[in-house]
């Protein structure tokens, strides 16, 4: 028996799994940092199939791509500078596009508003831009959207204390240059994605969701110290 090969590889498997489990325990040991109940509109299921029987939900938010209506106040050049982006090049500069494209995305904390005034305002604009989608936008589309970003989650929570309507999650932000006909060029920030947007649904909630297939549901999301989520409630 190649003793050190077996011992070394077994130790590696045990150590790596212990590292994961200790990390999870630390994350959840401090209690729930934030808790929010969302619906099937904000947490649509990723369909399970014969080949993959696990169930997960995706945190869905209005990115402003379709209809092309901005959600919330937007992230301007000053905010980007505050987040650490180099915004010294003017948007009208010949090198602006390559300058902002070359800047790597940064990890920031994103404030997602749920079913609040920013969504109401966005809905009016979205219906005006795409009247044929009115029914979908009112009854089925996600009511989550980005209203602010920052480096410190505690500072953001102090500004948005209502946990039922404001969710703070880590995400990736990138700087871009906007071109619109008959408007001056503009530098803005875009949330390129959330670090964890695919959320596993464990048993027994997975069975409840499977029974509710096609019907509305409510899922409660809990977040620990490291802002990693888990499902902590499910009801029709």
């Amino acid at each position: 028996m190649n003793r050190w090969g077996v011992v070394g590889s077994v130790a590696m498997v045990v150590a790596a799994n212990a590292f994961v489990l200790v990390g999870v325990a630390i994350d959840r040991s401090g209690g729930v940092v934030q808790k929010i109940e969302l619906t099937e509109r904000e947490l649509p299921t990723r369909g399970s199939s014969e080949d993959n029987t696990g169930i997960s939900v995706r945190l869905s938010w209005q990115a402003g791509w379709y209809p092309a209506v901005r959600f919330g106040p937007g992230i301007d050049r000053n905010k980007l500078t505050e987040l650490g982006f180099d915004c010294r090049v003017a948007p009208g500069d010949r090198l602006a596009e390559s300058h902002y494209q070359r800047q790597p995305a940064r990890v920031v904390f994103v404030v997602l508003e749920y079913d609040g005034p920013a969504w109401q305002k966005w809905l009016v604009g979205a219906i005006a831009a795409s009247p044929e989608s009115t029914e979908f936008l009112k009854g089925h589309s996600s009511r989550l959207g980005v209203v602010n970003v920052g480096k410190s989650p505690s500072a953001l929570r102090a500004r948005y204390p209502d946990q039922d309507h404001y969710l703070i999650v880590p995400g990736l932000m990138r700087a871009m240059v906007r071109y619109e006909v008959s408007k001056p060029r503009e530098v803005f920030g875009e949330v390129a994605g959330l670090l964890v947007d695919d959320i596993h649904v464990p048993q027994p909630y997975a069975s409840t969701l499977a029974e509710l297939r096609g019907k509305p549901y409510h899922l409660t999301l809990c977040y620990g110290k490291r802002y990693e989520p888990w499902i902590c409630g499910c009801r029709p």
Partner: protein
Amino acid sequence: MDEILTKRQAQERANRISAFREELAQLEREGALALSEEQRQGVERRLAQTLAALAERFDVDTSESQKQISWGMRIASTLGGLALCAAVFLFFYRFWGALGTAAQGGILVAAPLGAVLLTDFAARRERTLYFASLAAMVAFSCFVLDLNVMGSIFNLTPSPHAFLAWGAFALILAYAYRLRLLLAAGLVCVGTWAAANLATLCGIYWAQFPTRAENVVAVGLILLALPALRPHRRIPEFPWVYRMIGLLVVFLAVLEVALWGGWSYLAIEPKNAERCYQLVGLAASAGAIWAGIRRRMPGIVNLGAAFFVVFLYIRLHVALWDVLPKYLFFLLIGLIALGLLAAFQRIRRRREA
């Protein structure tokens, strides 16, 4: 035969004996050499004893048909290993939805441990290591599945450190059982971890490490240099894997920035960065061909030649595609290929002389 340490050296000796037998028979047929019956039997006895000893100790191929079967076994074990890895993934995903979190975790941890024991069992039973290599690949894929699914179950923020764990696991198995495929997998994982951490040090989110190709080039160069810093006397076939993976990483990173100039630290316009790296790629691949020929490393020569053609094509495409008629552009590429062939032939003749 005492000086023979590795299977490769033993196979080279067996090949020399086969060639010697054929040449001896040819010389006898042509009448250039006439051995007495006693001499022929003596030589044949000696050769047969040597081959039997090599086969006994190193399990070498002693005939052409054995060699062909060995190639078939190598291909079958690689394809079989890949198929088994896919089977492990698909099997788990088919049933995991019905299991509780504890059962899922238990299966995920037990699977790689079981496959490691199977690898050890197979390695003790056969010297060729075909089955051990296959079991080690399954163990590696089980461990990849393990950490990947644990991350999904607990919704963990993606981390580059999983690559370090996978890489270390693959390297342990590779060195313990002399498995080249696992060594390659381990080097790719550890290289990814190193490049991701370099990116983090430079203020870039780790998963975006390919967007700064210079970090990846640095990792490739380190892999390339490692065999020189740490000689593998016990496993002389491993430095080849280090060199090939290192060079492949360097060439792919340079190719990436030769196509997308924005993915570089160079504070110049992306188009100029692309031009710059196209020339770097040409020079580096030419250098690899030269070094490979000098050091008699055919793998390096082939890899260098493949990337030299790719970089040359990109450079010519950028410079001439819009300027020349299309037929002239491809004619030029064809002529350059002919020129390269002639150059290689000259080098070959010079080395033979």
